[in-house]
């Protein structure tokens, strides 16, 4: 980044006030320095300006440097596309401009339906707001409005209403410039212009939720939120998305204790203002019918509702010594990991507490050199063995932003082509299982010809990619083949093995991992060598292990404790089960893939008798060894040196 002193400034006059602003800044941004607001529709700070809606008209002029006279231009100009230059004079308020804005709004409204009362955007709609502040009170339009499709289900998540569309192209520019899939485009011209997918096929973008948020009207609305609430019904709280390890900042909108919608919250260091569809629409588990509400204990073949005291007694009876194990999910809070480690190893004396289901998730190779924000500044990026748009969506957006804005050269090596290959300079599609060989080829440990033959890539292609990748910033995940990871880590450039679990990074930091790994525990359990197993916040049937193995493990362990938020498949094998709160129902902190620890407060009340996992561990801990327990999540985090 350029140092502050490098920024050239120019002097401009806004409404008679002189000020110095960075050269080339757009007028619409420059006037914000004076606290002025220019009404906009099509302008978006993260998209290239187009000047389509004409809402941001301002009067411009030039100051003569010699005699200081000001000459105003006869026509108003669009503030969203005009870069400032020395001596520029801008008026944002005048009677003529008021009339211009009224005129533009009248034009926008003549074909906009009057269905604000049933529109999901109503109440938080820029068109409503601008009309209120700048628009005409009445319309002189007495002709037939333009009719078009309404409530068109463009995908499972997005509903399109073309009557409401004001053709600002924000959605189209998003898919072109940010997500890169170009799935939306204008069709036809003139007053028939409308944005839509190719042949009205499904809008399958992995970032489709963002177009809903940037739409300045209710043309693109959230299908899952459709008619669920109005903005004034909602309570909104700051939260962190925990559907993957990127840790996007989100607004958590809830009504009467139920989550109804998730919107992106701006954090320049992480997600800017975007979310992926997984995060934006994947909140069903909060309102899941299968939520676990009370503790359960097994009597014979049946799991019956029980109270905490009974279950605690049974747990303390079953767990002690190294013959027991605890498996933790990778999306629990840091507090859970810290207290679990203290309780399980410190009080119960077992070292078998772990979160790793894959042999590749070794702690050693999990280095992260780059923050997410710094990825866009890399000159060359090597994306290795991961499908970024799926595994690390926000990292994907950063890598693409680097390519789009700075011309970062991107090299992709993976087992099938994906979204990254759309813009990658070199795409190497290797045969599954040959990661280590190709990594060694990058390090020069294997000859290019051999590697090419073994991995199924043409030799010149591989050679070109290897040449281009010199000194590249490597991006991969912790689930990459261990051998390949070690080789890539030794290369010249930065190495980033980002974890994919929502708080896998926190687990790495908080857990000692000096006993059996989760995978080893399950193997041991399957052989009947484990007397008790405690599974916290993870459904063993959904971690990618063969079903039979999991069933064998669960059936052959003497005592199975399950602590989870919902009745997962694992729950039905449990000896005892404890209900657990979800992130929005508890205080907690989470560490994302780049190592930023973010706090989250309890937003909605817990379901039934569910408790945060750390509180359960604390309550059990004082039963074993009476002391003053932690009563707040923040105290726990402060006690852990790994998070200092």
């Amino acid at each position, binding site marked *: 980044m350029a140092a502050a002193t490098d920024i050239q400034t120019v002097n401009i006059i806004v409404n008679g006030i002189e000020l110095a602003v960075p050269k080339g800044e757009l007028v619409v941004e420059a006037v914000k320095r004076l606290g002025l607001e220019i009404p906009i529709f099509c302008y978006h700070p993260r998209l290239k300006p187009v000047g389509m809606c004409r809402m941001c008209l301002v009067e411009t002029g030039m100051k003569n440097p010699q005699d200081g006279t000001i000459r105003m231009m006869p026509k108003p100009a669009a503030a969203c596309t005009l870069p400032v230059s020395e001596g520029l004079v801008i008026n944002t308020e005048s009677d003529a401009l008021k009339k211009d804005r009224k005129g533009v709004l009248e034009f926008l409204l003549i074909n906009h339906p009057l269905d604000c009362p049933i529109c999901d955007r109503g109440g938080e709609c820029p068109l409503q707001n601008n009309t209120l502040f700048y628009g005409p009170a009445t319309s002189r339009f007495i002709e037939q409005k333009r009719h078009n499709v309404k409530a068109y289900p463009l995908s499972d998540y997005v509903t399109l209403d073309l009557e409401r569309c004001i053709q600002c192209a924000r959605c189209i520019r998003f898919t072109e410039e940010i997500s890169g899939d170009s799935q939306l485009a204008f069709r036809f011209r003139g007053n028939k212009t409308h944005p839509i997918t190719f042949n009205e*096929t499904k809008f399958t973008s992995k970032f489709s939720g963002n177009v809903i948020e940037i739409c300045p009207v209710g043309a693109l609305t959230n299908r899952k939120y459709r008619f669920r609430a109005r903005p004034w019904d909602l309570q909104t709280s700051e939260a962190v998305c925990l559907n993957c390890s990127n840790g996007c900042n989100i607004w958590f909108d809830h009504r009467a204790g139920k989550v109804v919608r998730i919107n992106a919250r701006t954090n320049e260091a992480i997600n800017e203002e975007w979310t992926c569809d997984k995060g934006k629409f994947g909140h069903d588990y909060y309102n899941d019918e299968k939520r676990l509400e009370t503790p359960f204990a097994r009597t014979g073949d049946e799991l019956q509702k029980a109270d905490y005291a009974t279950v605690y007694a049974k747990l303390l009876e079953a767990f002690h010594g190294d013959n027991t194990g605890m498996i933790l999910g990778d999306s629990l809070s840091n507090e859970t990991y810290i207290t679990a480690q203290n309780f399980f190893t410190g009080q119960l004396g077992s070292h078998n507490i772990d979160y790793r289901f894959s042999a590749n998730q070794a702690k050693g190779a999990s280095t992260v050199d780059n923050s997410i924000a710094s990825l866009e500044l890399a000159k060359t990026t090597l994306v290795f063995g991961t499908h970024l748009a799926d595994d690390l969506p926000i990292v994907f957006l950063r890598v693409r932003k680097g390519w789009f804005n700075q011309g970062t050269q991107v090299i992709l090596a993976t087992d099938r082509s994906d979204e990254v290959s759309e813009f990658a300079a070199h795409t190497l599609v290797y045969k599954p299982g040959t990661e280590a060989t190709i990594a060694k080829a990058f390090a020069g440990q294997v000859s290019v010809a051999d590697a090419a033959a073994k991995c199924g890539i043409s030799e010149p292609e591989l050679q070109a990619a290897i040449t281009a990748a010199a000194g590249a910033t490597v991006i991969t995940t912790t689930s990459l083949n261990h051998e390949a990871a070690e080789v890539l880590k030794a290369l010249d450039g930065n190495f980033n093995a980002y974890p994919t679990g929502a708080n896998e990074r926190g687990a790495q930091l908080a857990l000692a991992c000096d006993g059996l790994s989760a995978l080893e525990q399950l193997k041991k359990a399957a052989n009947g060598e484990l007397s008790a197993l405690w599974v916290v916040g993870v459904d063993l049937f959904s971690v990618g292990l063969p079903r039979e193995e999991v069933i064998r493990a669960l059936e052959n362990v003497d005592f199975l404790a399950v602590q989870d938020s919902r009745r997962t498949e694992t729950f039905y094998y449990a000896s005892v089960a404890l209900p657990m709160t979800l992130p929005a129902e508890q205080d907690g902190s989470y560490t994302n893939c780049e190592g930023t620890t973010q706090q989250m407060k309890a937003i909605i009340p817990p379901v039934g008798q569910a408790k945060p996992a750390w509180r359960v561990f604390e309550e059990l801990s004082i039963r074993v060894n009476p002391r003053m327990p932690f009563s707040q999540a923040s105290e726990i985090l402060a006690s852990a040196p790994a998070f200092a």
Partner: protein
Amino acid sequence: MSELIQLGSHNERPMPPKADELNLRFSEQAIKELEGLKTHYPNLKACILPGLWIAQREYGGFLDGDAIAEVAHRLSRSYAEVQGVATFYSMYNTVHNPGKHKIEVCTCLSCHFNSAYRIRDYVSKKLGIKNGETTADGMFMLEEVECLNACDRAPVVQVGDRYFGPVDEKSIDALLEELRASEESTVVKMADQIVQVQLKAEERVGTIR
């Protein structure tokens, strides 16, 4: 309006076609021509317009979804983008199959004042179709167009790559007879000629007629 999505198809949307599901129909000549055109421009995007002309010829005058998908695929652009470009321009037949001959009647200022609407109504009555429709036998399509810039010959009618003007009822009768008798589709011929004139002599596969 026919150019808008039909109401009522509110069921789940189909998935966009994958690259290997496309039914590619470009002939060898077309592929060669496209390769030639690619050398004219610094990037593939600029070939969208010429590519669509090739597709309009290859797909018999009508650019349906398949044709657009093929152009997009061959030029590595997104389907939606190419469809957006194709629907912007009035000479690409993206909405309505024009049949064999597209009769374009200029009704703009000079032609209007030289009775272009009378000519349009005459054609419309004679063929039994309204503006923007195709006859049942797929022979003719009638379309009102904006200024063809041959105002000295008003009223003007364009059929394929030829202008006719000034026209009256009699010459329209003769023109329709001639078109009915001709084997070749003027819609396809026009697309072909437009492709040919853009190619250099050494790149040309077809002929300029």
